[in-house]
């Protein structure tokens, strides 16, 4: 078991002929992900690297290949439309890697997706990986190892840092998921925490958060009464100045809300162990698993 993606995932890549779309489609294929189709409007009937069929629309790709997940690399001005197209075609899992989508566009997308069966992860996220089975996204595959720790975060490299600390110590991951650094996204921390709660393979959870919003607090409140596995957290941005957007569009302390201190307090109040530094997350999780 694992969550969201596994051996049965049949992946579509929207924007497969663009520079990063092509690069990361190859990265996923090399990792062993079953990439079944690509979409680039106007390039239908061509093929990607001589083996993956390209379609003009997601709807065609879905009918011909039965793809059940999509990875979006479409440029920001067109990415909201790409998400809506995937939902319209009924693709179950939509992972949007694209960074820089206007918030107003994402609000409209989110309002439409409420009545859809599709699940969106992202945008502005590194993707999802179930080690040894399926990688959808831009993370380096080799730092991961199959195991029992679930990892959830908003960021890319900070997640790699954490995963590497686990792998180097011989501890693997069930699934690692980045929900993205934008103020409005699809799947929330709470959604993922609930999935990890139901996954028997996941024995412990690492929650990497950052300043801005209150998604971490929301997850912590649920964990307090419902989640029975050990949880270790780290919140980035304790030293970030208020009112400044720290790289991620969503990483901003607005007035007195969204501070690292408030989030760490919410974690502790929920019985979650907060790692003192980003270098101690792996170690802290392993201690929890042993105790």
């Amino acid at each position: 078991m694992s969550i969201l993606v596994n051996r049965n995932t049949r992946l579509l890549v929207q924007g497969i002929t663009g520079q990063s779309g092509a690069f990361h489609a190859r990265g996923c294929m090399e990792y062993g992900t079953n990439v079944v189709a690509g979409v680039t409007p106007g390039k239908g009937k061509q093929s990607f690297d001589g083996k993956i069929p390209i379609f003009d629309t997601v709807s065609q790709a879905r009918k011909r290949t039965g793809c059940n997940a999509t990875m979006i690399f479409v440029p920001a001005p067109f990415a909201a439309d790409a998400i809506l197209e995937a939902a319209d075609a009924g693709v179950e899992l939509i992972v949007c890697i694209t960074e820089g989508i206007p918030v107003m566009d994402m609000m409209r997308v989110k309002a439409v997706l409420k009545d859809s069966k599709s699940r969106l992860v992202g945008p502005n996220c590194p993707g999802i990986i179930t080690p040894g089975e399926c990688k959808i996204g831009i993370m380096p595959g080799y730092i991961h190892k199959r195991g029992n720790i679930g990892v959830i975060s908003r960021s890319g490299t900070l997640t790699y840092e954490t995963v590497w600390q686990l792998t180097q110590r011989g501890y693997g991951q069930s699934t690692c998921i980045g929900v993205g650094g934008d103020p409005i996204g699809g799947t929330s921390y709470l959604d993922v925490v609930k999935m990890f709660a139901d996954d028997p393979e996941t024995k412990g959870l690492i929650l990497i958060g950052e300043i801005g919003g209150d998604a971490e607090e929301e997850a912590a409140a649920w964990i307090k009464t419902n989640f029975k596995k050990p949880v270790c957290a780290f919140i980035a941005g304790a030293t970030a100045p208020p009112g400044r957007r720290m790289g991620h569009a969503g990483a901003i302390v607005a007035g007195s809300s969204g501070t690292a201190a408030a989030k760490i307090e919410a974690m502790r109040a929920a019985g979650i162990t907060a790692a003192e530094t980003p270098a101690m997350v792996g170690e802290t999780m392993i201690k929890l698993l042993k105790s």
Partner: protein
Amino acid sequence: MNIHEYQAKELFERFGVASPKGKPAQTPEETEKVAADLKTSSLVVKAQIHAGGRGKGVFKNGFKGGVKLCSSPGEAREIAQNMLGHYLVTNQTGPGGRLVRKIMVAESVQIQRELYFAILLDRKIGSPVVVVSTEGGVDIETVAAKSPEKIVREVIHPLIGMQPFMALKLASQLGFSGEQLKAAAKLFMNVYRLFSSMDCSLVEINPLVLTTTNEVLALDAKFNFDDNALYRHPEIVAMRDEHEEDPREVEASKFGLNYIGLDGNIACLVNGAGLAMATMDIIKYAGGQPANFLDVGGGASEEQVTEAFKILVADKNVKAILVNIFGGIMRCDVIAQGIINAVKAVTLPVPLVVRLEGTNVDQGKKLLIESKLPIRAAGDLGEAARLVVAAARGE
């Protein structure tokens, strides 16, 4: 991105949001002319800087107040003389103050009631939310803490936008009636149209006033724009005033680097926003103070790394530099080559600690060793923080 008060007024005019008449000026002569055109004896001259606290600010030439009332164009001219070309120090500018390059002359209105109106983004529900209060002219967070019952929130559905009935409901909740009810509702509808078509993340009108002549006007406003949407609003981008920004940040933005200047003495260069924040945090934990936030992004080029390095080295407060890279998309050899090029171009004035991990890490480390540069290598993030803090202390 921030804009000046006179630019906010221009946007209000364009979208039919009622606000007192006023225009910017760059010279005392122009100030006099603009003041005369307003045809009123009730005037206000306001220094145009991005920092708040102008009213209580003091100019370095001794002139008191960045917001001054007056009653004739001649007086306005004299006030402008004392403001333009001088540094205004407020509780938000720091001791250096800000050079005033423009002033705004506006009609000064007599206030009957002060209210609060804002549209912002609610991240949790994914919709715009209107916030109104009968307590205007004061900080809304103070109102929220002291008398939360005086704050009313109305969620706007992003697919249909603000509807006329909502605007009327809000106006009525603020105690408006008769003609003023209609005027306030019209103002709210127009502010929403502005918010939505200009991709704002915040429009805060504080105060919204009812004048003694029963006009409903937006007296002062704060805008935030969604940086992600600036590509479709060239007229907003044109409002950017680089004079109001940290010169280090302006330089960094030219090379597509995400840089935020801070007050500490340990510079850092990191890939990825989350890891960059975490690196600042661990520097603090190890007893140091970060000099900046710098995310070179997932796919930075050798040239971008070189430019990033130049910006760090140019900061005179910096006593040590930490490079922390976890290569995913970013290859460690590219980072290493960028550092080597930068150090060759600008002699390295302070100790440099490098921590590389991830894609092509061995090639990266090899390049650094072969360069024979005086680099302290760190095996992991914790060690990197300890080494750079010690280096900044001269150890």
